[in-house]
């Protein structure tokens, strides 16, 4: 059996997913707890995004070891996961009330940018592999 060939674009996925996962847990994590120690809804939005980013990382690593046909399926799954991550903060799970809070100024934009990049990379890879298949 031939070993799957790793292209430069294949490396982009695990790197982006790792940046996404580490970022949502550290650099662009949502707002901290209230004075009484309770969490605001943006905290749970951040947790859900971290879950989606973790799943993206898993699929991205899996992409490195599977063959072309399976890669196309994983690309589709990555696009769906990126769309889910994009919709989580502010749409599926609410953020803080004031738009100048950290979850609005940092968490949501960083999530949007990384989700868009991930979806764009997966779409490009999918199109290239479909063209190659023809």
């Amino acid at each position, binding site marked *: 059996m031939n070993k799957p060939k790793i292209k430069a674009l294949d490396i982009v996925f695990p790197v982006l997913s790792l940046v996404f996962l580490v970022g949502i847990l550290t650099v662009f994590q949502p707002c901290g707890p209230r004075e009484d120690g309770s969490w605001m809804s943006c905290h749970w939005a951040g947790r859900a995004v971290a879950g989606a980013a973790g799943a993206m990382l898993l699929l991205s690593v899996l992409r490195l070891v599977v063959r072309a046909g399976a890669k196309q399926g994983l690309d589709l799954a990555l696009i769906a996961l990126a769309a889910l991550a994009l919709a989580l903060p502010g749409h599926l799970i609410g*953020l*803080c*009330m004031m*738009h100048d809070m950290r979850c609005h100024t940092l968490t949501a934009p960083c999530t949007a940018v990384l989700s*868009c*990049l991930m979806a764009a990379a997966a779409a490009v890879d999918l199109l290239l592999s479909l063209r190659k298949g023809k």
Partner: protein
Amino acid sequence: MKLERTLALKNLRRKPARTAALVLLSAFLALSVFGGSVVVASLRNGLKSYEARLGADIVAVPYQARTKGTFESILLQGIPGMFYMDEQYYNKICTIEGVEAAAPQFYLASTSAGCCSVPVQIIGFDPEKDFTVQPWIRESFALSLGDGDIIVGSELTVPKDGILTFYDTPCRIVAQLGKTGTGLDTAVYTNMATIKTMMRNAESLGFHYLTDTDPDHAVSSVMIRVANGYDVEAVTGDINVHVRHVEASAAAAMLSSVAGGLKSVSGVIGILVAAIWVLAVVILAIAFAMISHERAKEFAVLRCLGASRRMLCRLLLTEAAFAAFCGAVLGVAAGALIVFPFGNAISTALELPYLMPSALPAAALALGSLLLSALAGALSAAVSAWRVSRSDAGLLLREG
């Protein structure tokens, strides 16, 4: 022309590293031009909005509020502030010659806005005397505010039930204001009766914000309109001389300090964008000069095969235009991914009024950036293209 286009595209495809370098350089140029122009446009919009929303000729606040810069912090950064003076100062201001209208406002900061760990600024106004808040409230809410009704700024998320509770006072959200790009976007507006109820409830909850003044006879600021024929500076001076413990400031002076900050930020961004544009043109020109030198023999062969001087010139320009256009599209897209989602973060970092352009002006800016970047690509390749078209093919081939 079709042949040049096909050849140019094939040339670009066959040298992916060289093409990628040209595209990246153009992308960086477009990113800086688009990003910089959106930030400068947003700052300009912000200043206009700030000017329009201030709506008074003079603002009078208790002396301690002016020295701490509290009032400007509310307006610019949305940092909640609470400062009070006795109503007698408002009455004294009304008697000053040249004061046509004076509208008191009462400020209160919430302890929690129901979901956030930061306070929200609540601004109470007297609907019968007010002339600064109501004109732009009417843009979103045509009726009069009843007791317990509030209007929220654009940067506050309205809960599904439309109710916000401040100091055990449930308030009904009747409208949400349009975005102004100022600190007032995170404020809540209500009438005097409602805010005084909140104040009394705050007292009963153990928040003693007012120790030496009766809440029912206290105001936080007075917005003043000067009568026609009177000098604003003179009236401001009169208030400062005749009403003790109050600091009056002409709105123009407040605006000029913000405008000064905005001018310096815009200037720095403008210089940076211009420097990047010139630098990118120079680097691209050097790159094209090196590429045309490296491909001199290829061009000489094309000349021997019957290509005219004009055709060679067009070939190089087409290659440059393709690379510059692709780079510009990428750069503008990357710029849009930075400046639009991170608008709130940029606004918070700059601490200046910041109102992003709407869709149409933003599209115009994107188109302008695309054209400017493509122009830079064409300009930088023009000299090389002219040199290639002038070179002697026979001599080049004989030199080996």
